[in-house]
């Protein structure tokens, strides 16, 4: 098989992995090698699905001995199989990197023969890349569940980021759909990576204090930490269960990112959504929004999804949804409120909150001032008080709710609304089956949400 066909097969098999970020590692170039890493990460292109392409994302091999039912590479599936040789993959990575196509390599693999054998092949490829080609760019490698601690250690010494996929949001689902995998086989490497990465972080700090040039210092073990991914919509877990799990993972394993991947049916299996069901993209989008609230806005999972509303709202982004449930927290006075309260206002992000904090030192901010410093007022205006808000016209609750609805809800397609179990204080929000058109559904949702205020 020629390299081009191999590349196509192994990229196609890797494309469902959501992680493509090249962030978390900041390493200057070195005179004897090629490459550097940039803390914030760099996107080199955007694929036809709008996702960032930062890394050459491929599997080492797609011929799996495991039989996870949600996976196109499982033992029982048909389709072409291929594997790189370590030399081939290293050479390809360098050729792409020098032309600035990519920021580095994202290497995962199906379980070829055994977890440790697979790890050995991956380690081989990375060792050529780091050794023979003196590659100093970004590498994200996936540890194979069930691999030995020695193999995980060796892979981590070559990678910037090393991670393990949690795959499904609960152990019950994992047992049911991935018979060869165990929860422990996933969590053990995760905790090993956390400890190793922490240790190498401390060592690099110590080196910095002793003034060793960063390019002369060893890379250490997975300096960019770890991330994980779970599949959404293949199994029955609620959004609340998913966010609680994510927040636990952030806390317990210090993950940099949790990725959510809308399930795209790969086989006709009664345990899984039917082949013609579309991936729940709007739901995935809402989960990412909720995840942002966890990471950058100081929310916790319980606030975003309290016990009595286990599903995210199809029509509202999670922050708006929270704000409407907590009217006593508003209005927030933009001229006085602490940063943490500004961050709770729908439509105000970390950057605009910072700008508000700076600008208000010089003047009492009016609505126009806010607009000029780049605060988007479409939603924020219902939740804030500025120097001149008292004179503004009063809007009806219904109009306010209409302005707060997320215009993206419709853009994802009418059908997507039905993939939620959206309840608003006990009232069910309409989905595709409940209203003849999207407009009707939106009007019904407005009425429904307004009535709960």
């Amino acid at each position: 098989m020629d390299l081009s066909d191999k590349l196509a097969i192994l990229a196609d098999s890797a494309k469902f992995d959501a992680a493509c970020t090249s962030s978390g590692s900041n390493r200057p170039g070195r005179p004897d090698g090629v490459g550097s890493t940039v803390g914030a990460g760099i996107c080199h292109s955007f694929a036809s699905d709008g996702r960032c392409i930062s890394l050459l994302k491929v599997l080492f091999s797609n011929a799996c001995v495991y039989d996870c039912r949600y996976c196109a590479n499982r033992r029982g599936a048909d389709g072409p199989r291929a594997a790189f040789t370590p030399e081939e993959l290293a050479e390809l990575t360098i050729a792409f990197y020098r032309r600035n196509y990519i920021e580095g390599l994202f290497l995962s693999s199906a379980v070829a023969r055994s977890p440790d054998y697979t790890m050995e092949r991956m380690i081989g490829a990375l060792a050529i890349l780091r050794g023979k080609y003196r590659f100093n760019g970004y590498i994200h490698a996936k540890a194979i569940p069930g691999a030995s601690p020695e193999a995980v250690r060796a892979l981590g010494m070559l990678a910037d980021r090393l991670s393990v996929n949690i795959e499904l949001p609960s152990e019950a689902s994992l047992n049911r759909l991935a018979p060869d995998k165990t929860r422990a086989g996933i969590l053990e490497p995760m905790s090993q990576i956390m400890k190793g990465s922490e240790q190498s972080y401390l060592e690099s700090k110590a080196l910095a204090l002793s003034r060793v040039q960063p390019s002369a210092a060893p890379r250490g073990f997975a300096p960019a930490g770890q991330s994980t991914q779970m599949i959404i919509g293949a199994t029955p877990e609620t959004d609340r269960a998913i966010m609680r799990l994510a927040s636990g993972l952030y806390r317990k394993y210090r993950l940099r990112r949790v990725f959510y991947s809308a399930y795209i049916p790969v086989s006709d299996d009664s345990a899984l959504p039917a082949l013609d069901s579309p991936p729940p993209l709007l739901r995935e989008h809402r989960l990412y929004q909720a995840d942002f609230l966890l990471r950058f806005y100081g929310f916790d999972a319980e606030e975003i999804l309290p016990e009595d509303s286990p599903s995210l709202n199809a029509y509202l982004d999670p922050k708006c949804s929270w704000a409407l449930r907590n009217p006593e927290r508003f209005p927030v006075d933009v001229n006085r409120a602490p940063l943490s309260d500004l961050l709770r206002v729908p439509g105000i992000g970390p950057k605009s909150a910072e700008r508000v904090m700076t600008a208000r030192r010089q003047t009492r901010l009016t609505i126009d001032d806010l607009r000029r410093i780049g605060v988007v007022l479409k939603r924020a205006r219902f939740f804030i008080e500025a120097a001149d808000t008292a004179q503004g016209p009063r809007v009806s609750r219904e109009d306010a709710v209409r302005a707060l609805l997320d215009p993206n809800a419709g853009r994802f397609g009418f059908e997507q609304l039905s993939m939620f179990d959206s309840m608003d204080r006990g009232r069910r929000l309409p989905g595709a089956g409940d209203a003849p058109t999207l407009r009707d559904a939106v009007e019904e949702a407005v009425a429904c949400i307004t009535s709960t205020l």
Partner: protein
Amino acid sequence: MHNLNAVTANVSYRYDGSLAGFYCCVFDSYARKEIPAAISSDEDDNGQIPLAPERWVLINPGQALRVRDGLAIKGTLRARDLLEHVFLSCMERRETALLAFARTVFAEGSRVLERLADPLVARLLKAEKGLLGEAHLLTGFVRFTQTEAGLVSIIGPKNFVLPLIAPHFADRLGGEAFLIYDKTHGAALVHEPGKPWTVARMEPPREQPTDDETRVQALWRRFYKTIGIAERENPVCRRSHMPMRYWPYMTEMKEFYPGYNGS
């Protein structure tokens, strides 16, 4: 040097387009206690008849340095960075705005930077954001072609980003000879291993690709087409992250650009 009594004068300054030249315009404006009706350079010569009689501003390195140091002392390094960034940006009539900004910094110090809602400051910050945004995008979107002479890239940015992206590429590809040609501004970033990079006006590069180049480019195009998920197709999202004006310069995107003719 500050002088609040300057009046708008019926004169248009003309300078060589360099940063030092612009600083000399600022110096002259103080020396002559006047604010020119316009400032223009060879760079933006578009055959238009000037608004006011032109006066050439000659470069005097000592004067330029005095203004430059003064900005950092009276204001802050951040104020000077903002000015020098906007100078590279594609903002319309940026020199006039930057002269007004420099005068405000000299008059009031760095507090001006906190006035984010001030129309002039807001305009400058927006122009700077556009420049830095484009520079960041291009650290990713630059595509090199392997030639016998080294790696060669052509870009067509709105802002003059070469000086901003130069340190990134020189650091990353320290051992490589490379050239990035900016078609919009007719200038190139040139790097040779072991030497400092330079940015200068230049003719377009004519180096031919090596024999292996077609094969590598085809591999990349194949990867690009494979990695998108058909069930999630989203052209609007792709265009908003990667505006179409970058496509003609990108190996994998050329063929999707309207009017592409296969070359």
